[in-house]
């Protein structure tokens, strides 16, 4: 059993993984935390693959969750250096009384700026 245990050097970014091995995945059940001045965003997925030193491809049931919102999608490229995330798969954003579905998204500025791509659909309650 291969156990990955990486600790990123960035102060405000944490990464951990479970001990379950998934074929074709560098990291199984990866968990990240993105901290900015006002909030924490927890990032989870079923699988993760390192694309290079900074970028990790998160796959299957990828979820970003903070106190204010959550985003669910299937694939995300997460950049641990500049704390950005990019997805080109169907995404669902949920916050209080709001849902946004889109063809993908980018997260910038430690989660303060989120861009939803393509034809997007919003429901406000």
């Amino acid at each position, binding site marked *: 059993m291969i156990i990955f245990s990486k600790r990123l050097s960035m102060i405000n970014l944490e990464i951990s993984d479970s001990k379950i091995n998934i074929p074709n995945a560098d990291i199984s059940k990866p968990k990240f935390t993105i901290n900015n001045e*006002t909030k924490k965003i927890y990032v989870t997925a079923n699988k993760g693959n390192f694309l290079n030193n900074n970028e990790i491809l998160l796959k299957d049931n990828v979820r970003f969750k903070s106190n204010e919102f959550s985003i669910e999608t299937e694939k995300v490229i997460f950049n641990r250096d500049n704390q950005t995330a990019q997805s080109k798969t169907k995404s669902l954003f949920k916050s209080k009384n709001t849902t946004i579905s889109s063809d993908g998204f980018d997260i910038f500025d430690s989660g303060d700026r989120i861009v939803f791509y*393509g034809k997007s659909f919003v*429901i406000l309650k």
Partner: protein
Amino acid sequence: MRLILKLIIIFIFSTSVLALEKGETEITTEDGIEVFQNEKYYLLKKNVKILSDTFSLNADLVKIDFDKSLYDIVELNAEGNVDFISPEFKLNGNGEKLRFEVNIEKLKVEGIKSELITEDIEMFSDGYIEVNNINGNFSLIGPNSKLINETILIKGNSIKGIFSSKEDQKEVIFLDVFDDKISYVKNNDTEMFAKKIIFNNEISLIELIDDVTIIRDGEKITGNYGTLDTKNNSYKIKSNDKTKVKVIIQNNE
């Protein structure tokens, strides 16, 4: 063929409306949404359609400022081919830009051929039209500004006024019209021209200041200052020392 097309349009619109639950707002965009959490606003990009159970709005780009969360809308700014309709408030309009400040219920439509149409009043301007629903203040500023209701037609570069707070009818209770070329008011059978025209419903008086002309029943009277009593439909014209009141009686036969 036209009937079929109409039925298709009605059906599509109806199913879209029926899909909404009461109180829900549905927004679609062609080119995505940009959310700025710290700055508390989001941008809706390209061919934006907003549909709620009280109004619908279409525009090229919409910026929405929010308070606590995205649904908690404080201000809406729309740009490019803006048109909107509210069957509930019997209101529709269009323009190049629109701003709606939710808390103070202030609506501003801006740009060439701006229009704001209510059940009682039609407003047009190539500058902007601004209406405050809470205190009844309104302004039409810019070229080709025009306000029309059942009994009055007003034209001027600057039309400022107040609607009555009666819920059933948006009656104009005060007007201040100015145009450095000439303002125009038509009330029943009387046409009035002056640089500045003031109407006060409380004292039933229209006041005309500078380059005054009143036309009624083929009679044209000019002077520097005039008043029209809207209760008894009588008018007076005064002149300053250097000029005189001039009366022209036209023979229309």
